[in-house]
C-alpha cells in the first residue's frame, strides 16, 4: 500500500526560508510521480507542480513557477517543497500526492503540512 508521510507544522516569519518534506513507502518509489497541492484557508485545492522520482524531472504549474522549488532525493524516497523567502500569503496546508508513471489519478496522499507565516 502506498503511504506518504509529511513533515510537521511550521511557524515562520515573513522573509524566512523553508523546506518541507514528503516521504514515500510501500512501493517502488522510483517509478512514481509526487505532486504538491496547496490549500489556502477555507479555499480549494491548487496543483503546484509534480516531480518524477527516477530522474527528478519537474513540471510546475505556471502560477507557481519561480515561486517555489520542488526537488527529490530518491535514495531516501523523499520529495521536498522549498521557499527562499516566505510571504504571509504562503500560509496554507500543503499536501503531497503520488501516482505511478503512466497513471493519471492520484491515489496516495500525505496527511498535509500546515505552514503559517506571520510576524
Amino acid at each position, binding site marked *: 500500500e502506498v503511504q506518504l508521510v509529511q513533515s510537521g507544522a511550521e511557524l515562520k516569519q515573513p522573509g524566512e526560508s523553508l523546506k518541507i518534506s514528503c516521504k514515500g513507502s510501500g512501493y517502488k518509489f522510483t517509478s512514481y510521480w509526487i505532486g504538491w497541492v496547496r490549500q489556502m484557508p477555507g479555499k*480549494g485545492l*491548487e496543483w503546484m507542480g509534480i516531480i518524477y522520482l527516477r530522474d527528478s524531472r519537474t513540471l510546475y504549474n505556471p502560477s507557481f513557477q519561480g515561486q517555489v522549488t520542488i526537488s527529490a532525493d530518491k535514495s531516501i524516497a523523499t520529495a521536498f517543497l522549498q521557499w527562499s523567502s516566505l510571504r504571509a500569503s504562503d500560509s496554507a496546508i500543503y499536501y503531497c500526492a503520488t501516482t505511478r508513471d503512466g497513471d493519471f*489519478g492520484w491515489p496516495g496522499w500525505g496527511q498535509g503540512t500546515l505552514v503559517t507565516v506571520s510576524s
Partner: protein
Amino acid sequence: QSALTQPRSVSGSLGQSVTISCTGTSRDVGGYNFVSWYQQHPGRAPTVVIYDVSERPSGVPDRFSGSKSGNTASLTISGLQPDDEADYYCCSYVGGFGTYVFGTGTSVTVL
C-alpha cells in the same frame, strides 16, 4: 491555466442522487480521458473516488460514477449517505504543461 468550473454547492436527500459538473476546455477535460474526482472531508486529506473519467478505485462504493461529454465531466453519487457530505473536486491533466488543474470545488450536503 484557469481552474475548472464546478457548482459551488449541491444537495440531496438521503438515498437520492446528485450530479456534479466540471467544465473545462479542449486543453484539459475535453482533450484527455484523464479526469479524476476527489472527496475531502473537513480537516482531512483528499481521497480519490474516480479516475480516468469513470474508473472506480477498489474500496470506493459503486454509488460513485463518472462520465464525460465534450469539455464537461460529471460525478454522480447515487443513494446518498450521510458520509457523502463533503467537498468534491474534479481534476484534469492539462496538455502542453504536462501538469494538472483542479476544479473550483463543490460542497455536497445530505439533507
